[in-house]
């Protein structure tokens, strides 16, 4: 056991190694470990958040689905109602239209009957005149007998 200057040399080595560790080994390693810890913690937190959000989204989607179903039912009901209403309206319109058509047809028929009657009257009158002409074998002054003829027409 002889103490000598080796002690100083070893103390210097020791100091140098402490300095290296303090300056170049510990801080970067500690930082890397702390960063990793933070990264993992953040990842776990993000996972937790994601799970929570998924839950919320599930709830939201269920709500949305329920709303959509309700709305769809509503729309269908409204559409059915509107359809029935439209059919009803169509029925009414059709009835009116049909009545109109019938009325106009009746009017036309009446008019045609009237027309045919008038024509017939004319012809009968002419026939009567022609007959009378023949019977009488003489000319009848149409103008002079017009009044009488028209009175005759009215009688027909």
């Amino acid at each position, binding site marked *: *056991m*002889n*103490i*000598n*200057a*080796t*002690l*100083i*040399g*070893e*103390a210097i*080595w*020791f*100091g*140098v*190694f*402490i300095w*290296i*560790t*303090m300056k*170049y*080994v*510990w*801080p*970067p*390693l*500690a*930082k*890397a*470990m702390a*960063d*990793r810890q933070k*990264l993992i913690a953040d990842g776990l937190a993000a996972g937790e958040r994601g799970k929570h959000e998924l839950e919320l989204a599930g709830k939201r989607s269920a709500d949305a689905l329920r709303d959509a179903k309700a709305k769809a039912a509503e729309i269908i009901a409204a559409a059915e109602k509107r359809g029935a209403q439209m059919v009803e309206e169509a029925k009414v319109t059709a009835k009116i239209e049909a009545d109109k058509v019938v009325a106009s047809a009746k009017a036309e028929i009446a008019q045609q009957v009237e027309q045919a009657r008038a024509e017939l009257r004319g012809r009968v009158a002419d026939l009567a005149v022609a007959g009378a002409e023949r019977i009488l074998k003489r000319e009848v002054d149409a103008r002079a007998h017009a009044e009488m003829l028209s009175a005759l027409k009215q009688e027909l």
Partner: protein
Amino acid sequence: MASGEALTTSGYIVHHLTNLTVGHGFWTFHLDSLIVSGLLGLFAFLGMAKLASRAAVVGPGKLQTFVEMLVSFIDQQVKDTYHGKSALITPMAVTIFVWVFLMNAMDLIPVDFIPFVLGFAGVHYFKVVPTTDPNLTFGMSLTVFAIMLVMGVKVKGVGGFLHEVFTVPFGAKLAPLNLLFRVIEDVAKPISLALRLFGNMYAGEMVFILIALLGLWQLPLALPWALFHILIITLQAFVFMMLTIVYMSMASESHG
């Protein structure tokens, strides 16, 4: 076994316990201790520094994981014991543990191997375990002691430090006695620290040498002792580190 030595038992033992020296008197340097401790330290700490410089946050390699595990284990020990705030304590604890462990581990190299190899190079004395050199253990413990004193003064201030030295544990009236107690207490720290490590490693190395003297019988004996010694190597490194942390925490907390 170096050539030119008498092949006596005591000669063999003395040969293995003699340092490779240069210089005279106090200015003698144990080249073997200085070189082995220096190379081991440079290897370990420059290697760790290189590894730390490109330490990956995501996907660390196996070596980085190992070093991180070691370093965070030591950091945990420091956090459990030392409650002050100092950027020095953990790095110092890491340095002590890793360095002392590696130097102690030199003990596991068969005692005749390195002297035999170096014998060819004309180097006849070479103690390969630097921790069996009290110069190293005292060099470390006195450095720890100096840091401890500086830290005590830094944390408590010069006044606070002196106040503690003179008033603890018996109060201001017995100041000289307090001082005496404090001196004994503090001086005992580096001495016990250095001698514990030195004694353990020296004794262990001595047992290895004695086993090596047994001829063929060393084969069944050296292995169990080496296995057992792995425990001592680790334990002594841990104890040195742990006591250093404890001393630092004592220095930075109020006494008694």
